[in-house]
């Protein structure tokens, strides 16, 4: 029996990062590192080379991720550091590699990324870059990614975005021109905010990082407003405000109508446009969905794992719909979430709080707390066997504005309703595949998922034939696996208890 009160804290005890403890010393799979965060951002910028300086594994795996993220057209270079470099330093080697990349004349900028070992030996690549940048045709940037000073990949995302401010210099502002900062999905023009702004004649300048080249980043200084769509871009926005006097609006993935209203109002004031009045239908839809969710989820309990949104904001939103939080897993403590933490406590809830990405001991937690719902990525079959409805919300990543809570509510409602109507279906799997309902010709598969040994050959053949005739499902399954590779294939390993 895992004594949770001995190992971790309740929400009311959380004052800072010190109180966010791990459930165990042995963690599986563990968090990603800042190098991963850099790869998530920097691989998008087509004409920027990224030179990763580190051990064989850091460079190899970062390359693999960037390759997959950009379908083989990434610009990641590797400089592997050996024993001699650790003893005598590797500055000359880094400069030589930079010159080689620069000589290709294919990149407008080069980002040098240092990893844990270089920070341990104190190799100052930042100063090296400053000292020599004038010798290069490409602009040079430096980002450090040591994982031993932080608990996740987030600092890597923040630093790689912030570093881009170094490419910008003051320029004449264009009225009604905005930049989008932090959006990591293609197709930003389809989002509610951008569509509404375009309707009002606002010009979308630079979208960092998902749709930009170095010249676009340099021209970002012409904008009169930055719209920040992910909190990892806030340091960049602050830097641009300080350096270039460009104000910003943080349009995070908020769920509460009042918060979204507030963000839209700020944009309306700064740009002198009228947006909210055009979005009344969405506000009404959101109200309707909140009512439906409140009726469906009243009295239900949940464990928060992860979503593309902020842990405490999502948890508070679910509390407002009548759910009870039992356990919240978070990457780190962020002071900006204090308001949401206090809101949960004010509602009379005091859930357990622990570090994320440690699913092996969580198996005991499920047995002890017996939640109705698990929100986030996990092993779908393990949760299904324990009678827990697993819901993921990856779809929200590409949304901004009212469409964030609308998409989130539609997803959790549809998956939960599916779980109620089809208790033999592991809905977590559907959820991760991005499906909100059971495809017609999948119904036969659920039996096979449960009891494969009990089927006759003919029945299995018929089911597999149906499965094979659903290409969209196979595509969805592949995409779901790509989204969360560490969990789907491996959760069952570490989760063995």
């Amino acid at each position, binding site marked *: 029996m895992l004594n949770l009160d001995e190992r971790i804290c309740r929400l009311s005890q959380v004052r800072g990062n010190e109180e966010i403890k*791990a459930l*165990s*010393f*042995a*963690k*599986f*799979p*563990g*968090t*990603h*590192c*800042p*190098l*991963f965060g850099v790869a998530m951002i920097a691989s998008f910028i087509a004409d920027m080379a990224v*030179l990763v300086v580190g*051990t*064989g*594994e*850091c*460079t*190899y*795996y*970062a*390359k*693999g*991720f960037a*390759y*997959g993220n950009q379908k*083989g057209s990434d610009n990641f*270079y*590797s*400089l*592997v550091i*050996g*024993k001699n470099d*650790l003893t005598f330093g590797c500055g000359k080697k880094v400069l*030589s*590699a930079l010159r*080689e*990349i620069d000589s290709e004349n294919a990149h407008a900028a080069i980002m040098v990324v240092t990893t*844990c*070992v270089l920070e*341990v*030996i104190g190799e100052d690549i930042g100063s090296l870059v400053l000292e020599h940048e004038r010798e290069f045709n490409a602009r040079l940037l430096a980002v450090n990614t*040591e*994982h*031993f*000073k932080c*608990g996740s*990949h987030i600092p890597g995302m923040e630093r790689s975005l912030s570093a881009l401010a170094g490419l910008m210099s003051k320029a004449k502002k264009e009225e009604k021109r905005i930049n989008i900062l932090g959006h990591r999905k293609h197709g930003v023009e389809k989002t509610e905010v951008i569509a509404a702004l375009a309707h009002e004649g606002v010009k979308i300048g630079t979208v960092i990082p998902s749709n930009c080249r170095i010249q676009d980043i340099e021209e970002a200084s012409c904008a009169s407003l930055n719209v920040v769509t992910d909190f990892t871009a806030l340091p960049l926005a602050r830097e641009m405000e300080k350096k270039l006097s460009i104000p910003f609006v943080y349009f995070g993935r908020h769920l509460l109508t009042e918060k979204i209203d507030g963000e839209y109002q700020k944009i309306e004031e700064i740009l002198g446009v009228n947006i909210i009045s055009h979005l009344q239908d969405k506000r009404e839809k959101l109200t309707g969905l909140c009512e439906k969710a409140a009726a469906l989820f009243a009295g239900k309990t949940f464990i928060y794992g992860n979503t593309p949104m902020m842990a405490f904001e999502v948890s508070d939103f679910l509390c407002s719909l009548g759910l009870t939080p039992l356990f919240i897993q978070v990457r780190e403590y962020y002071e900006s979430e204090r308001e949401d933490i206090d809101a949960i406590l004010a509602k009379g809830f005091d859930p357990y709080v622990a570090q994320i*990405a440690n699913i*092996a001991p969580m198996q005991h937690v499920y047995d002890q707390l017996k939640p109705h719902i698990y929100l986030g990525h996990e092993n779908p079959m393990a949760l299904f066997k324990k009678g827990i409805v697993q819901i993921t919300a990856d779809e929200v990543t590409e949304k901004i504005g009212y469409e964030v809570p609308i998409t989130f509510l539609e997803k959790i409602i549809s998956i939960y309703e599916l779980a109620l109507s089809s208790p033999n279906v592991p809905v977590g799997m559907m959820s991760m595949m991005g499906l909100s309902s059971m495809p017609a010709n999948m119904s036969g598969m659920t039996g096979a998922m449960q009891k494969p040994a009990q089927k006759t050959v003919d029945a299995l053949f018929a089911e597999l034939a149906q499965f094979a005739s659903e290409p969209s499902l196979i595509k969805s399954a592949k995409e779901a696996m790509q989204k969360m*590779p*560490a969990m789907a*294939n*491996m959760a069952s*390993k*570490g989760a*063995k*208890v």
Partner: protein
Amino acid sequence: MMTKHFPTPSDRMGFLWTLTSIEDCYVIEFGPAGTTHFALEGAMELGGEHKMNVFTTHMSEVDITFGKHDKLAGAIREVDAEHRPKYIFVMASSISSLIGIDIDSICFELQDEIAATLIPVTYGGYDGDYNLGIERALLTLCKTMVQDAKQDQGLYNIIGSNIDSYNFLSDKTEIKGILADAFGLKLNTCFTAYTSVAEIERAAKAGYNIVLRAEGLKAAEWMKTKFGIPFVYQKPYGITGTLAWLKKTAETFDLKVDMGCVTEKTEEVRRHLSEFKMFIRNAAHKNAVIYADYDTAAGLADLLAELGLSCSHVFSKHALPARAKEFVKAKPAESELKEALGGGYYAAFGDDTLRKLCSDESFFQVANPNMDKYNFYPHTPFVGFNGVLRLLQDLMNFERKKLKNK
């Protein structure tokens, strides 16, 4: 050396890749969590199935500054109590190795209170290429797990079928088939693709060891000394290579070859081989470029020679083993690979780096990383008789495609 494509994996990566396909294998890494998380996802890109149970302790600035290892001790105690494994590999990371955390002593101190046997692995990934890690892992498994047993002369072990090797699954199937048909032998333990701790423990039951890669030689020599198990080392490519391997196996193990199946297969290959040679008689280039792990590269060169092709460049992706064939060159720079392809070639056989450097039509995947194709069907070998047939079929389809496009 800077690389635009994938760099050479390190010895630490090779060690982990060798363990990753072992059921009931437990590993605790003492290092930043991202190292473990990246490694887990990276291992999956090899196309093999991840079976081991791996945990990380994570490591903070305080741990590094003060050399603290209480997290590691805590993790060892937890895994031991929770999972009751027979063995726990306690692995250093690049950081814990760099700051001199003494994994050996930590394991020694803790061993008395831990039920599992603790196996310290002190490598930080600075010693060499991934093949060195594979060699060390195979030897460590033998030294720490294999137990004395009564030998059964109907059983053999495979040493060196590991998931880092692109075609490990199909090649293993072919080896099993040939040894069953030719000698009536059964596989006892496979080091290490899709095996278990229990299977490794009983490896000494086998009468013979079949070594498929140079990295397995030290493990085989150790088992010969310790248990008296003889071994044959060769990855059998081509008809000649496969027959030589059978002959060597029969002689070393004092076995008799059942020539029935051998003759039949040889005839089948000969029939298609003549047709292929007709196809390529007027080819502008008859040379191939190979870039793969040493045993694959060297063996494939022999096979291609049998098919009437020459190998202008045979490159090993890692440092060469002792007594490597002279025509194999180790670790070419990317510029050297480009140069090798620049002079014209018939076909290129390699990994994803080579694929990116040459045209897709003339490229054949024989090594990892493989970011392009699935490879889970276990009956498409490169080794043995069926390996020749498979390659002939691929190359003849390649020829047919060229004719269509003319």
